[in-house]
């Protein structure tokens, strides 16, 4: 492909003059078939899940047990069957998705805010500041993130807020490191020198010039990290430290169904499928974004 790039180079240059980075990325993303598939999957999942309050009533459809209808196989009316309390598995999957994805996204947002701040400060100022921040993060990195999350959740109470905090803390070190590496790279570029020469403040340089440039290649990482966090939540739920009942959450549903898997497979199978599809969709979109936004890191 090297020679193609060579041949195309002038044409490419021409294009990039005409369009912004984002428009360009969007074009590249649209051309990527698997990314498009991922976007369609993700959009479908999100629309179906987030519109669920329109046709589902939390109290009646999601958490209300019907003890006469426990562990029913999929049938008309209950498309994916019922769980051990006779609740509609489909309704719980839809509502549970809001929780699984919601926690994943919020935790990622929190950790990217913290991670960007730490990473940017660390990368921009370097020296002792960098040393202190990085060594402290090393401490958190030294504990496997799942173990760290388990420890945090079991010390705090497993409320949704605490879950988000624990997941965010678990992923801050790796996010900060990624941001720091990007900031270091961009800091070394000439335009930053140029801006500094114009007398811009450090804060302005970081916020207005470095971070926007640093973030675009990281966006795909963030998207993939959400997938990882959703898996982590399900893992926590599996050992009983995740989302607490009666709220449905995919991992918790899946693990509560495993007792019955020899008799009723659907209680475990369907939440698992929902989880896998969501993670696959996020991965595809993340992959596509990486290729689209960051040709430099393109593999």
């Amino acid at each position: 492909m090297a020679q193609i790039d060579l041949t195309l180079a002038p044409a490419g240059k021409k294009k990039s003059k005409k369009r912004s980075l984002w428009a360009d990325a969007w074009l590249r993303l649209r051309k990527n078939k698997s990314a498009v598939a991922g976007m369609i999957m993700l959009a479908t999942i999100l629309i179906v899940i987030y519109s669920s309050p329109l046709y589902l009533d939390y109290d009646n459809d999601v958490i209300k047990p019907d003890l006469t209808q426990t562990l029913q196989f999929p049938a008309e009316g209950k498309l994916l069957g019922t769980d051990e309390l006779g609740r509609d598995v489909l309704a719980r999957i839809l509502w549970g998705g809001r929780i699984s994805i919601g926690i994943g996204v919020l935790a990622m947002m929190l950790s990217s805010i913290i991670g960007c701040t730490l990473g940017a400060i660390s990368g921009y100022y370097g020296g002792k500041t960098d040393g202190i921040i990085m060594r402290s993060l090393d401490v958190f990195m030294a504990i496997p993130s799942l173990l760290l999350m388990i420890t945090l959740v079991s010390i705090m109470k497993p409320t949704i807020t605490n879950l988000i905090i624990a997941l965010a803390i678990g992923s801050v070190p790796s996010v900060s490191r990624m941001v720091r590496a990007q900031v270091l790279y961009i800091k070394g570029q000439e335009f930053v020198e140029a801006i500094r020469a114009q007398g811009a403040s450090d804060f302005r340089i970081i916020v207005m010039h470095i971070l926007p440039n640093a973030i675009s290649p990281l966006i795909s990482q963030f998207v993939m990290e959400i997938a990882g966090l959703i898996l982590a939540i399900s893992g926590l739920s599996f050992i009983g430290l995740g989302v607490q009942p009666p709220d449905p959450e995919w991992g918790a549903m899946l693990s509560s169904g495993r007792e019955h898997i020899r008799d009723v497979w659907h209680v475990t199978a369907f939440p698992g499928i929902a989880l896998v599809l969501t993670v696959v969709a996020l991965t595809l979109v993340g992959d596509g974004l990486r290729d689209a936004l960051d040709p430099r890191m393109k593999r």
Partner: protein
Amino acid sequence: MGRYILKRLAQMIPIVIGVSIIVFLLLSLSPGDPAKMILGLNAKEQELQMMREQLGLNDPIPVQYFNYMKKVVVGDFGTSYSTKQSVIEMIGVRLPPTLILAFGSLFTILIVAIPLGIALAVKQNSPFDNIMRVVSLFFAAMPGFWSGILMIILFSVHLGWLPANGFDTPSAMIMPIICSSIAGWAVNSRITRASMLDVIRQDYIRTARAKGLKESIVIRKHALKNALLPTITSVGMAVGGCFGGSVIMEMLFGINGMGKMMIDALRQKDIPTIMAGVIITSVIIAVANLLTDLAYSFVDPRIRSMYARRKQRKEVAGHGAN
């Protein structure tokens, strides 16, 4: 290189101390009275007082921490509150299964993911490549415990080939190791494939081809060594993942390992056990990271010489900051 290793080992000390401070602080500040844990609820206030005194729980937290670390330094991790056993003995029993599980997974990741990634890169865009890419996408998305449940149903219940529980025989080890490495296979074969494709497009591969080398030599000798670098990083990171993931695998397969011990200890606020578990895990991970870096420098001479010149570089960096 020897000096570098020593330096890295020395750098581990503050990290481990940091880990111990954080966990100790978290545990000390969270609710729950260890004296009650030990004596049971029918203990009298006087007995509780005595026990608190004995455990040093009445001391300020920094003093408690210092006293604890004093013992740890000489290898005494204390006695578990809940099992009354010496923590180091408990870990002695539980560490081997976890190590076998974690490093067994790591090993299978290496022997599966790297050859698979290379094969996929060489046969880029073939039906084999396309199918495997989709399959690996789904494998990477499956929570380990879910695939574990499915495997138990298939291999233990329906086929009766493998035991569904335990970790004491080689056949019992198969499923836990595979389950905790499936995602790793998928992720790392993708990384190997991607970096292989990246490397194959590099100029030096063209140089190697221009030398008239056989394609197999070009791939094995010139491409692979370079392509392994991202894989080494990712596999290195997977060490932590394998340790974390072993918690869930141990719960699912009923393995008497560190992860299960930690969960039990956390549920019962068994501070000595939790502390020892976290400290030992972090040391193992730090050592694994060091080994990863050494493997990296073994493969990449640029990194190797960077270590040699590290001090010099640091000075330069210091100037830059001023």
